[in-house]
């Protein structure tokens, strides 16, 4: 926009749609939203309302930046009298500030005319020229219900504050239904006239958010996607997992974060802090996409993306299916914040009774759901041969079984591990106990066998004559697609986890693996283990399981697509 270049401080309420729109409109200038008057470091200071101008007027005298104030018409929260008097007081304040030059702007011709009635002269219109930027969709803003509906399709709707308004306005021509404040009408007029240039970069930056999962599932899937993206983008990890070191070892920059629970602080305080930290990162690295793997999109992500100047950041939600039946489906409403939702395939999808299979969110906004093939970090070519793997692991001759029971946060495995050790010994099978990079030294090490602290494990599966494993997404798919030996699943049952018993049960029904049913009797479990180790001893040869499939390429295409906003046929 003419007249504005260099570094611009936007003094605003970060949730103000006008601020979000203006920050985009001022691109390519470097726009930073601020909550207070910065003393230095900026060429311009734009104050987004006369109320904020009044609030900070006493500090404007000594600053070097050129000052502009956007005069607003009445908002829904104000009475006409309050607005009119506030404007008059602002006008008087300008009169008193004889030493300070302030340029005045308005968001629409009507706003310029109405605010000018307070005796303010020389109000400029913003934007000064109408844009020819085409909008694909049409969106109706219902202020009273706080909902925006796209193309009249109820499901393609979102809460009024779900998205950054510049991102919204870039995609849709906005109209108002029902009553609204004068200011909201100005915001819409502005949004429909603004060019809101997004700009493109040769090598975009993506920020990958890894939540603090129980195991390594989220982290592993994200590493798999990162690997798939290769050098097409600069990748930065924002990681709450305790296994962040794994990401660093994989060669990616990683910001290690703490959850409110880690810090033992109030959730909202943490969220406010995290929002700002995350927004600062997105702004500094010029991020174009945020890729998040998890079931619930935390508000710190969406709030950060809504900040002025971050409208060019798309949100991709990697959402694994196979949730437990009866899980809280409301979190699926997070769809409205996203540009795309990517569901990595699950070989056991037929057994999935969770809400992702049937729950239709009330609001899904612009998002589209892409179901891809399974995602595993390891590919067939990554696997070591049996000999190389045994050498790598330092295993000698004999029978070896990998025990990978997953996280021990939720269930007491003491009896199970004792049983395994006892029966393996009976069959003269040596045990290798997998230790998660997250885990403290486990009691299993006191039993028998060897501890293996390696990530990823799957590269050396060929070293083993059998595997006893939990049925988390990654272990399950790596074992079912990359491993030929006998597998015994010991699924973990817990409300916070995916439906491991269903997944394991499906594999069992297909003859791909045995299942250790924690609900069965001790004798039944003993029998299952006894049979399994007998099979390990027999080296009974390759099992016929699913052929290797990978959705990584498809997912990477979705992520890398320059425009994620194409219409989805309903």
């Amino acid at each position, binding site marked *: 926009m003419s007249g504005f270049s260099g570094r611009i401080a936007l003094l605003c309420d970060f949730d103000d749609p006008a601020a979000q729109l203006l920050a985009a409109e001022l691109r390519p200038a470097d726009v930073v939203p601020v909550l207070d008057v910065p003393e230095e470091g900026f060429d311009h200071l734009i104050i987004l309302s006369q109320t904020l101008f*009044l609030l900070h007027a*006493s500090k404007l005298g000594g600053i070097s930046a050129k000052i502009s104030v956007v005069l607003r018409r009445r908002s829904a929260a*104000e009475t006409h*009298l*309050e607005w009119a008097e506030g404007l008059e007081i602002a006008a008087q*304040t300008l*009169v*008193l500030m004889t030493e300070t030059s302030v340029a005045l702007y308005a968001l629409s011709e009507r706003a310029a005319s109405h605010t000018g009635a307070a005796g303010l002269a020389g109000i400029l219109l913003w934007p000064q020229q109408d844009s020819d930027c085409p909008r694909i969709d049409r969106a109706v803003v219902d202020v009273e219900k706080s909902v925006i509906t796209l193309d009249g399709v109820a499901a393609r709707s979102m809460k009024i504050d779900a998205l950054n308004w510049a991102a919204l306005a870039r995609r849709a021509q906005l109209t108002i239904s029902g009553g609204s404040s004068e200011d909201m009408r100005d915001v819409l007029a502005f949004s429909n006239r603004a060019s809101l240039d997004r700009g493109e970069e040769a090598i975009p930056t993506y920020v990958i958010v890894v939540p603090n999962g129980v195991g390594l599932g989220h982290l592993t899937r994200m590493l798999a996607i990162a690997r798939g993206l290769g050098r097409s983008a600069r990748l930065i990890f924002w990681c709450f997992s305790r296994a962040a070191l794994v990401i660093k070892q994989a060669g990616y920059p990683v910001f290690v974060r703490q959850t409110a629970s880690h810090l033992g602080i109030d959730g*909202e*305080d943490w969220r406010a802090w995290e929002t700002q930290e995350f927004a600062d990162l997105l702004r500094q690295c010029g991020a174009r996409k945020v890729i998040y793997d998890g079931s619930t999109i935390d508000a710190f992500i969406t709030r950060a993306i809504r900040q002025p100047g971050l409208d060019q950041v798309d949100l991709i939600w990697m959402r694994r299916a196979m949730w437990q039946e009866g899980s809280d489906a409301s979190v699926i409403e997070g769809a409205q914040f996203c540009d795309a939702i990517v569901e990595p395939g699950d070989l056991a999808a037929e057994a999935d009774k969770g809400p992702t299979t049937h729950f239709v969110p009330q609001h899904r906004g612009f998002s589209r759901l892409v179901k891809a093939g399974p995602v595993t970090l390891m590919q067939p070519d990554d696997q070591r041969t049996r000999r190389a793997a045994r050498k790598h692991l330092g295993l000698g001759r004999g029978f070896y079984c990998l025990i990978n029971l997953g996280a021990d946060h939720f269930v007491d495995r003491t009896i199970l591990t004792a049983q395994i050790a006892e029966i393996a010994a009976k069959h003269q099978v040596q045990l290798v106990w997998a230790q998660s990079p997250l885990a403290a030294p486990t009691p299993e090490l006191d039993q028998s066998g060897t501890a293996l602290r390696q990530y990823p494990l799957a590269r050396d599966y060929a070293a083993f004559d059998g595997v006893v494993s939990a049925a988390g997404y990654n272990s399950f798919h790596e074992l079912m697609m990359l491993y030929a030996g006998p597998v015994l699943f010991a699924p973990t049952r817990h409300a916070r986890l995916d439906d491991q018993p269903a997944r394991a049960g499906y594999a069992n029904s297909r003859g791909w693996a045995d299942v250790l049913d924690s609900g069965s009797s001790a004798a039944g479990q003993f029998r299952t283990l006894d049979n399994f180790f007998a099979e390990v001893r027999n080296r009974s040869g390759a099992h016929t399981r699913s052929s290797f499939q990978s959705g990584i390429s498809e997912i990477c295409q979705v992520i890398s697509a320059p425009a994620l906003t194409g219409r989805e046929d309903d």
Partner: protein
Amino acid sequence: MLNDNELEITGQVRREIGDLCGKGEFLSAYLRLKQSGLQPDTNPGPWEFLAQRCEEAKLSELAHNLRRRLWEAGIRTGDIALREAERALQSGMPEYAAYFLGEVFGDTPTEGEPRILLASALTESAPDRAHALLRDIEVDEADAALVVLDRMRDIGEFSAAEEKFQIYDARFPEDVRILQRGARIFQSQNNWAAALSIWKRVHEFGDPHRVRALLEMARIEARFERQDRVRALVAEYFLADPPIHEAIDFAFEMGQPNFGMAQLQDAVWFQGKSGRSTAQWSRIATGLIDRGELGIVAWLYQQGVDVGPQVIALIGKAFDEGLIKIAGRTPLAIAARLKGPDILLPLEKFFRFPPVPRNGVRTTGGKVLLVNSTLSAGGAERQLVTLARALIAQGVAPRDLHVALFSCVPDRGHAHFLPALDALGVHIHRIDQRRWPFGQFPENLKVPLALLPTPLRNDAAALWQLVAELRPDAIHGWQDRSALAAGLVGALQGISHIVLSARNMSPPKRGDPRLNQTRGLYLAMAKHANVTMTANSSNGARDYEEWLGLPNGAISVLNNGLDVATLAAPRSMPKVHPTKGKIRIGGVFRFAANKRPDLWMHTLAGLREILGREVQPVLIGTGPYLADILKLRDTLGFDDMEFHQALSEPEEIYSKFDALLLMSRVEGTPNVLLEAQAFGLPVAACDVGGVRDAMLGSGKAHGLLLPADVTALSASETIARWLPKALEAKADARRAFVAQQFSTERLGKSVLDWYGQEAAQ
């Protein structure tokens, strides 16, 4: 007489005590003195010495203990009496202060300090004595002058305080505190022009006094609706970076709540929760509670701001824990929707009301308590006196008629109708002179009442004890503010009959945000079976019904009363010619913005043009727009315009002109219209408030109702068409209209009926 040995010991102990005090070890010094065996009655020296040192070191409790020992031992020096009196006053025990001073200095101390302290001690219990002590006092120091001024203000002697201020102002011209007191004294006397000029002098002292002066000047200018000046002052005020608690409060006061909230949010989030002390946050929160902004306070608390234990306790009672969390999680603007007193509704549940008394039991006697703010020189106050008179005429014994007034200070202009009311022989209760009765509340009501916004909270607190003592059969609140307090207290104390008399314009129409906030409370009370709500015109009743969402007729009309018989017999009307010669058009109103004096003057100028005859304006009244009117008089060439500022007798007033014109933007039921018609005069007025009800609407003598937003040109054209016929018409119809519709007999009977009482035969 001490012997040598005792003298030596005394000297040694004194030295040791001195050394210990020098090292700051006062407690050790005290213990040393106690262990020394030296008794205060026989060796008072070391005790007095240590008491003085402790006082200097601001160890007031220790100093007090030492002085108490001396006093009990019979050592009663002036210094001990003065220090103990000071302490007693600071502790809110003026009677103790009076005792100490009286013991040493007698009833009329001659020296300045004990005299001032004694006057301070007597301020509440014996204001006349306090005034007598202060009246002739000479002071040498500004600090003492301040105390004198403050005590005189406390006892309501504002004229005397003004005289003192003039003296002290000349003697201590550089002391801004004296000036500030002076400005307050003038404000208390409604002498706004003088107050404004003093605040302008305070402004010259620079910050922080400038900030205070700006705030006060803006408030004064706002009274007179001089909006341009208000805005300029407000702008300068906020540019001056005022203290945050004042700035937030002032933003709300100036009708800028969103700006107030923006300041609060900025203070919380940007400047940091820990950037201010608990006392500062508590002050902000208390100010917000006073305004009924309970949701904002809950939000503040939930943000982790340390608002202090008292505020936390109050908020905890107002909201359940879940609601506090919700308030804290929502944006501030949404949390702000939770307001008092609405959050205290339904009243029955929150306050655990006693059962509503059965209505319908009629008696022929019983105590009645009328409640009003003041007896200022206003129409509503005059009507209160008329009502009392009307009730007595209907048989209510003066001994059973009580009138409670929140303030009746003559120097503040609050006692204008006091002689008239006093003459009726009724009981008059000045509840501003009663000790602060908050402690009298039942324990379970203290917190709910503390959550009420001010001034309702203070009004209810002030009224509580009186109602408890009197146990009236009927309580009648007069005008909105008193009606709310009387209604609430009456309901809480189970009074049988409650009458709430609003005037004739609802709070939103009046643009009164604080009263507007009481809609829920009004509505809750209006729905009670033993509560009657009234307004003093049909327009007013409909306006309140609309505001409260009540059905038509839910609010009764209580017409003003005018005792035509008490007015001097109407003189025979001067035979002013309907179309020729000079005609005198009168206006009787306060020269304030809402009376639109400029419109009145321009209308008369237009009328002069159209009628082609001499039109003489006659204005009776006074007010802040006098200078503007005089200027306009010269501009418009009304050389023979008459002004009368001291007329009070109706006959005198209504003999000065031939027709009455009112051009007010805001009106109640204007008594001047009734009185002018009672004297047979033609009347014209804008159709606002209760004007329509107060005007003869048909027949040849009918009044002229002008549109509320009429222009001067249009008004003058309409008046010119109406006036000749109105002057020709017989005056009797006007007199009869007033006598029938606004008789005091009718007023008395209606009200007595609402009290559940029969008129005495």
